[in-house]
């Protein structure tokens, strides 16, 4: 995430992460590894009712850790609010590399 974050910030864009859970699990996991919410340097948003995950077409599509969770996905929205890039993963590790994200952000300039 950190690699991605610096690439994104360099390109003048903003990173938002969306988690299909209430924030309790994120806080618990941070606590477990000795971190606090202040250590998360990008907004981590709680999509507890899955309404945003559903809008972006990825809710309940991956069964991991026994629960029905989001298919991993990355989207890029330009300054006008238009969706310009969408990549929905085929496995939990299937994400665009920081290089790909940077390249796609460059295309928006």
């Amino acid at each position, binding site marked *: 995430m950190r690699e991605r974050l610096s690439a994104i910030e360099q390109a003048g864009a*903003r990173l*938002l992460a969306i988690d299909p859970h209430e924030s*309790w699990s994120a806080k618990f996991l941070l606590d477990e590894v000795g971190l606090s919410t202040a250590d998360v340097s990008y907004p981590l*948003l*709680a999509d507890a009712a899955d309404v945003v995950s*559903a809008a972006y077409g990825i809710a309940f599509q991956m069964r991991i850790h026994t629960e029905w969770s989001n298919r991993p996905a990355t989207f890029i929205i330009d300054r006008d609010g238009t969706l310009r890039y969408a990549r929905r993963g085929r*496995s939990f590790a299937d994400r665009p590399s920081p290089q790909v994200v940077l390249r796609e952000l460059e295309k928006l300039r």
Partner: protein
Amino acid sequence: MLRRAFTRRRSLLLLSCVLLLFSCDSLLTAAEPRRDPAQWIKSFSTQWDDTAWNGFGSGRTKAYIRPMDDEGWKARMHALAGLVSAGQKSVEPLIDLLSHGKPAERVLAAQALGYLAAEVPSGPLLAAAQDDAEAAVRLYAVDALGMQGNASLHGSLEKLLETESSGDVKKHIGYALARGEHGVDRQVLEQFVRWNPKTLDSARLGKQAPDFALPSLDGETIRLSDFRGKQAVVLVFIYGDT
């Protein structure tokens, strides 16, 4: 002659009143159409296919993902929104489903009951958390208990930790204990009630990205539209422990 004209006018008036009522109803119902909880359960049951998953990974991180063109997830979203926004009406049918349904139905029941938290008796949830053969049912039942924000359940939850075999379910018992008396936020419930089914799978390249308003870790509400005219946004959807 006069009587016939009067009757015709009255029928026209009646007809236009009825038509007006119908059109008003469809204007107001941007949310999920009101159906019986039993109908939502049935529609979910016929469309959710528990077998259409592709496996990947191994050992601890064995996971399953839907084929890209699968649509079953939509039935889950519709059913959850319909059941949760029906509120109290859904509780009894869901509690019944929790003990008597097929495995996939019991999972849905536990999941929905979590959001309905305040209206739900803990007994059936505890029983499911303890005794259901499916780890997923136990997991969502544990979540549901946590979402009730009832500290008096902690003893029972701690006891579950001793007997639970699934590491994932144990993790969720941990979340339930950690949240203490913080029940599920009203805002979450409102999202279901206000949900417009037309937004389902509505993100399209080249079109306006669906806007949203969600809370960050520190409780601040962040909207996608906050960044319009200012910055491009990279939206990364995670699944919970990335």
